[in-house]
């Protein structure tokens, strides 16, 4: 079964440092999403890509967060500088031509 790949699985970083997460969606899925899930809450959208274009980044804290999907395949989400409140699970998901959305296993970020 096809999967959404994310790395790293876990990341511990110090406050004010830069951190980056990588996502490889299911082959052929044109739409890619980055979500943030704070412990005990539901995932919240950060950014949505259609191919290499940003469709929705209205909830992305653009002063410190950036996301790119240069060739319309894999994607990178960056935080610089990281803050204590950024500690969360960062989830990537992709969707194709049907209604399904497939999530990766996520990157657990801890900012100390």
């Amino acid at each position, binding site marked *: 079964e096809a999967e959404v790949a994310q790395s790293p699985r876990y990341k511990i970083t110090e406050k004010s440092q830069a951190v980056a997460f990588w996502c490889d969606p299911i082959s052929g899925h044109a739409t890619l999403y980055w979500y943030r899930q704070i412990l005990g809450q539901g995932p919240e959208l950060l950014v949505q890509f259609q191919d290499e274009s940003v469709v929705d980044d209205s909830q992305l804290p653009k002063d410190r967060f950036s996301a790119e999907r240069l060739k319309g395949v894999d994607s990178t989400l960056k935080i610089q500088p990281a803050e204590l409140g950024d500690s969360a699970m960062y989830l990537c998901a992709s969707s194709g031509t049907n209604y399904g959305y497939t*999530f990766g296993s996520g990157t657990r970020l801890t900012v100390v």
Partner: protein
Amino acid sequence: QQQVKQSPQSLIVQKGGISIINCAYENTAFDYFPWYQQFPGKGPALLIAIRPDVSEKKEGRFTISFNKSAKQFSLHIMDSQPGDSATYFCAASINTGRRALTFGSGTRLQVQP
């Protein structure tokens, strides 16, 4: 702005019992309503989904009931098993343009043996 409200926050059910989780939405443009199951340290996994043109969908022990006029939908887990112990999220989206999912706040289900 919470567009999908989920209850209860936590639920304890005996093995073999029925687990019921409820969600209500506000945006009438939503046209896709999935339920996700999430185990600790894992990403959400699609359990079952429904579109607003049907009132009920059943897959094995899992059933979605959908009430379009009330803007509510619920998940029923029949014959609940300890392996069902997880966090369940309802979600909704506008499929046109493949809009992102809006999630509920989650229900932590514990099935006691």
